[in-house]
C-alpha cells in the first residue's frame, strides 16, 4: 500500500509515477520519448500535462495504461492501488483497464467503431466490467448517455457513430469510458479536434463528472488556455522530460522554467491587432538527437555553463522545476531545496 507520509492534501494519493521511461527502437537507434518522468495524482484531482507536439506527453499517458509496451520498452514504476502497472502482466492489466482506469482520445471520429451502434459499444464495456443483465445494461446505457448530455438518449442507442456530430461523439466516448465508474480518466487531447464552443462544453463536462464522481483526471493538452481553465495542477513536458510541475495557479502566475515562461508569452492576450506575436525561437529537438544537457538549452536565452553539459534535476517541494537558472532565482529562494 501507499505510504501515508506522502499524502499532501485531504485526498489520498492514488497514482504515483516514478522514473517512468519509454523508449522506442527506431532504425537501430534508441528514441527516448519519455525520460525519467515522476509525478503523482491525488484522488479527484485534475492534472494537466502540457507541452508541444512531440514532447512525450501522449506517450507518457499511454505508458501509464500499458499501450506503449507493445511498441517500445517501458521502465520505471506506475503505482496504482499498491500495484506496479509497468510490471503487471497483460492479462492482469486488462482487469484494471476500462474498470479502474479509462481513457478517451483526441479523434472522436476514429475512436468509435464505425460499424457498431452506440448502444452496442456501451453495452460491450458493461458486459466486460459489470454483472448487469441485458435490461440492466440498457438502463445503464441510457443513464450514461443522459449523464454526458445526449438528448433523446433512449432512441440514440440504436444510432451509428456517423449519425453523431464530433462533439456528441466525444460525449459518447466519455459515456463509454465512464461505464464502469473508473477512478482515473486519462484524456489525450480530448478537445483538440473540436471547435471552441464545443471544447468548452466537453471540458466542463469532464470537470463536472470528475467532481460528481470523485474521479481523478489526467488531461494531456498543448493548449495552455484549456489547462488553465481545468487543471488543479500542471506538469510541463519538454523533450520527453518533466521540466516544471506545481499548482496551476502558481505555475501560470510565477513560472520558474524558462520554457514555461516562453509558452505563456506565446499566448496572445490583450494585444492590439496586427502586432507580431511572440514565439519561442528555434524548434523542439529531435528525440533521436537530444542534447547532452538540458533539452531546452539551445533555445534558451538564459542558459548558463552547466546547461549544455548536465541534465538539470527536477527539484522543489510543491512547485518543482528542472532548471539551473530558473526565473526569479536571484531574488526569491522559495521552493528550491
Amino acid at each position: 500500500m501507499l505510504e501515508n507520509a506522502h499524502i499532501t492534501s485531504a485526498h489520498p494519493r492514488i497514482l504515483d509515477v516514478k522514473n517512468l521511461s519509454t523508449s522506442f527502437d527506431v532504425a537501430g537507434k534508441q528514441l527516448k520519448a519519455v525520460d525519467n518522468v515522476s509525478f503523482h495524482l491525488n484522488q479527484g484531482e485534475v492534472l494537466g500535462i502540457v507541452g508541444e507536439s512531440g514532447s512525450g506527453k501522449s506517450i507518457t499517458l499511454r505508458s501509464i495504461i500499458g499501450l506503449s509496451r507493445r511498441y517500445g520498452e517501458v521502465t520505471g514504476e506506475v503505482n496504482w492501488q499498491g500495484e506496479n502497472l509497468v510490471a503487471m502482466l497483460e492479462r492482469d492489466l486488462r482487469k484494471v483497464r476500462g474498470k479502474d482506469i479509462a481513457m478517451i482520445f483526441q479523434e472522436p471520429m476514429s475512436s468509435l467503431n464505425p460499424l457498431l451502434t452506440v448502444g452496442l459499444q456501451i453495452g460491450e464495456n458493461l458486459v466486460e466490467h459489470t454483472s448487469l443483465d441485458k435490461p440492466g445494461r440498457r438502463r445503464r446505457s441510457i443513464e450514461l448517455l443522459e449523464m454526458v448530455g445526449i438528448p433523446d438518449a433512449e432512441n440514440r442507442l440504436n444510432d451509428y457513430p456517423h449519425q453523431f456530430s464530433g462533439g456528441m461523439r466525444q460525449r459518447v466516448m466519455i459515456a463509454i469510458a465512464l461505464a464502469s465508474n473508473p477512478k482515473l480518466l486519462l484524456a489525450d487531447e480530448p478537445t483538440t479536434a473540436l471547435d471552441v464552443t464545443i471544447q468548452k462544453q466537453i471540458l466542463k463536462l469532464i470537470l463536472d463528472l470528475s467532481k460528481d464522481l470523485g474521479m481523478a483526471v489526467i488531461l494531456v493538452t498543448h493548449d495552455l488556455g484549456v489547462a488553465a481553465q481545468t487543471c488543479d495542477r500542471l506538469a510541463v513536458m519538454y523533450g520527453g522530460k518533466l521540466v516544471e510541475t506545481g499548482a496551476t495557479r502558481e505555475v501560470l502566475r510565477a513560472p520558474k522554467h524558462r520554457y514555461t515562461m516562453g509558452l505563456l508569452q506565446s499566448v496572445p492576450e490583450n494585444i492590439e491587432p496586427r502586432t507580431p506575436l511572440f514565439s519561442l525561437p528555434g524548434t523542439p529537438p529531435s528525440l533521436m538527437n537530444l542534447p547532452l544537457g538540458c533539452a531546452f538549452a539551445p533555445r534558451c536565452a538564459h542558459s548558463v555553463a552547466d546547461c549544455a553539459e548536465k541534465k538539470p534535476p527536477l527539484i522543489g517541494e510543491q512547485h518543482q522545476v528542472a532548471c539551473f537558472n530558473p526565473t526569479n532565482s536571484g531574488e526569491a529562494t522559495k521552493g528550491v531545496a
Partner: protein
Amino acid sequence: MTSSFSLRKSQLFVLLRPGFLVGLAILLSSIALALFPSFFAPFDPNAFNYSALKQPPSAEHWFGTDNLGRDTFSRVIWAYSVNIQMAFVATIFALIIGVTVGSLVGYYGGIADAIFGRCVDAIITFPFLVLVIAVVAVLGPGLTNMYIAITLVGWVYYARLMRAEIMGQLANDYAAAGKVMGYSDRRIIFRHLLPNAITPVIVYWMTDMALAILLGSSLGYLGLGAQPPQAEWGVLIAEGRNFITTAWWLSLMPGIAIVLTGLGFSLVGDGIADLMRPRG
C-alpha cells in the same frame, strides 16, 4: 455483416446499371444450371450414341455431338455443377484461412509477421499456376487435390490483403480504445477490426471466384483437375482438341461457357466493389 454497409440511395443505383444486371442474370442462370443440370440437359451427358458421331450443331443436338456420340449441350450443362462448385470450393477455404492469418499477423506484427512476410515472398515469387501444378503433381491429379492445391497457394493473397487492411485500421483509435477498455485481443481483432477491414477482401474474393473457374478448367484441360469422363469445361475442351479442324463445336461451346460465366462473375464483382467502396 448486413449492418456494416450503410447503403445510400445513390449507391443503390449501381445495382440498376446494365452491366451489373447482365452479370447477375448470367450468374443466377449459371447457378440454376449448376443446381439442376438434369432438368435442363436433354440427354444423359455420358450416354454413347454410335449412330450420331461428331454431328455438327442441329435442332436435336444444339451443340453437336462428340466422337462417341455424346450430346455436347448436355455435357456443357452438366459441367456447370463442377465448374460453379470450383468457384466456391476453391476459394472459400483460402478466404477463411487467409482472413484469419492476415488478421492475426496484421494485429500482432513482430516475429510472426516477419515469418509470414518471408513465406509470402517465397510463394509469390512463383507464378500462381506453376505452383498449383507443382502441388497437384505431388498430391496426384483429381478435383479434391486440385482444391487443396489452390487453397494452399491462394490463401496467401487473401492474408496479404487482410494484413494490410488490419494494419490500416489499427491507426484508428477505436482499436486502442478497445484495448484501454480491457477487451481481449480476440474481441478487438474479430469483432472490431475484422468487420472494418474485410470489404476489400470480399471484393477480391468476387474476382477470385472468376479466376478459380479459369484455373480449374485450365487444370482440367491439362489433365490435372477433373478427370474424364466427368463433364468439365476444361476436360471438354481437351477432348475436342484432337478434332479441332473437323468438329470445332466440341471445344468452342465449353469455351463460350467459360467466357460467359467468367464475365458474369466479373460484372457482379465490379458491381459489388462499387457498392462497398466507401464514399465521401
